[in-house]
């Protein structure tokens, strides 16, 4: 099977994000960049499914030249080849989903796996837009993967497993008060939750090999997509700071404060 996965370039989740004084954006200096953690889980999932069912993993990223770092990272993990949509301006979720739609129509994958959200804009939208644009089924917030193939594993709850006929995928989703299981006809769109898997490290041979793997360059113009943003960020601000708190020496003082000062117990 062919699996298309995404690799958005985002600020390292451990970075301290600061807003520029004029509110026009965030301070870029000193920031490190990574593949979006949810996308990395998607790459891992694609690799595991292909290891079981055969086929290839194609990774796609949209952005300036620098996103090739994230593509090389996915290739070093084991993805077979990469598609780079070269675009440097602002982009919103409709734009991203529109570009991914064209890439999917060109590549004809059985499955597109994306992160459930990017940790920079926290929108949690692209996979759902994409599924609708393609007219495919969607299974968002997929958790934990197991296979249907071995007898032993058949007895476990399958979380994201391709059916024996290769025509459907069964996905366990994390929802608000439990787990929901869906079966999507292929091709379909899946978005990953944190607990789907633990992504592998890229090995040294993997990193060496990744250098010779092909990266195809496309542009929004070549794909025929107008990416003029329809979501405009007018201004950014730091959230209001919390008033500094105090440390209390013991439980008795804590209970006294909670009762008489905060009046919450």
């Amino acid at each position, binding site marked *: 099977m062919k699996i298309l996965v995404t690799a958005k370039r985002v600020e390292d989740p451990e970075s301290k994000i600061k807003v520029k004084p004029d509110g026009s954006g965030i301070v870029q200096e000193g920031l490190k960049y990574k593949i979006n953690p949810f996308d990395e889980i998607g790459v891992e999932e694609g690799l595991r499914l292909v290891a079981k069912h055969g086929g290839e993993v194609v990774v796609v990223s949209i952005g300036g030249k620098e996103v090739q770092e994230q593509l090389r990272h996915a290739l070093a993990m084991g993805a077979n080849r990469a598609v780079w949509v070269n675009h440097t301006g602002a982009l919103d979720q409709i734009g991203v989903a529109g570009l991914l739609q064209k890439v999917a129509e060109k590549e004809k994958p059985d499955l597109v796996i994306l992160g459930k959200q990017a940790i920079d804009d926290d929108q949690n939208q692209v*996979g759902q837009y994409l599924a609708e644009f393609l007219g495919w089924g*969607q299974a968002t917030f997929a958790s934990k993967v197991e296979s249907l193939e071995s007898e032993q594993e058949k007895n476990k709850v399958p979380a994201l497993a391709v059916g024996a006929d290769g025509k459907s995928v069964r996905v366990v989703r994390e929802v608000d008060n439990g787990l929901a299981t869906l079966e999507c006809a292929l091709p379909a769109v899946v978005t990953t939750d944190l607990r789907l898997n633990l992504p592998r490290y890229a090995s040294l041979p993997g990193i060496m090999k990744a250098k010779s793997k092909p990266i195809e360059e496309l542009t929004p113009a070549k794909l025929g997509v107008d990416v003029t943003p329809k*979501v405009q960020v007018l201004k950014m601000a730091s959230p209001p700071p919390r008033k500094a708190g105090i440390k209390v020496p013991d439980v008795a003082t804590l209970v006294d404060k909670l009762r008489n000062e905060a009046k919450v117990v």
Partner: protein
Amino acid sequence: MPIVLIVAEQQPDGNLRKATLNALTAGKQLADKAGAELHTVLLSKDPSKVTEELKGLGAKVVHTAAAPEFEHYLAETYAPAIAELAKSIGANYVGMASTAQGKDLLPRVAARLQAAMATDVMAFNGSGADVTFSRPMWAGNVFAEVKLTTPVKVFTLRATEFAAAQAGQGAAEVKAFSPKVETGKTKFVDFKEVKSARPELTEARVVVSGGRGTKGDFKEIEALADELGAAVGASRAVCDAGWVPNDLQVGQTGKVVAPQLYIAAGISGAIQHLAGMKSSKTIVAINKDPEAPIFQVADYGLVDDLFKVLPALREAIHKAKG
């Protein structure tokens, strides 16, 4: 007159999801700013169970559609029906609470309507056609003011930022509609509910959360929660380790809570976790490490072993309550 359409959510037990009440308050605020009329919509196998309740929550019109295919929520079945209604009534805004269902469904509705969308909206600014949305980015480290430029604007709402709509706000007109039901390419297989006698995490007045410092032993967390009538929460590390179910996770990628009192025990306070609880009214941190970042947001911090503090705290609260 412009229309704000709020999508109502029914729980598997047939009751209205409480976050719908917060979404209706948000919808009313938006309608007032935009000079619009508030409508709500419910898709269900049997809408009759909650129609009466929905009628008194401030909407001008309650739209209901009944079909056997709406028994189990599926984005592919729900999205076309809601988009069809939004088009037929000429809705300018379509919103829903940022529940798992809201986040799964509304982008698909937006895609159908060729509409731009904002997730987790916390407030509305401006007036008339120029209303803009405040929403968090980078795990709540940035608040952005966002403008959607498409004719229809779609959004999900952060329920903790809006009070619950009160009953008794007049009687809405109920309009049944019969959308063309699309069944899509996805089948519902099953739903395994995590049942708890404690209040729902996102709705609780008090939340007691445990982190890695519990080493997986949640007995004292649960005992204190029960003494306080509180919900139990957890950090990502604790869920990842499989110590507690995933639906207890508070944070950027879990649930956002804003209770009156949030007690964090053995939680260091990573950015990811703070994103989910920073708006709590009073925050208490119990941690052995005086340098833990959680102390920077805590109103009251106690540097000590949680296994000593929690039982003592429970006893002291029990006594104080008489």
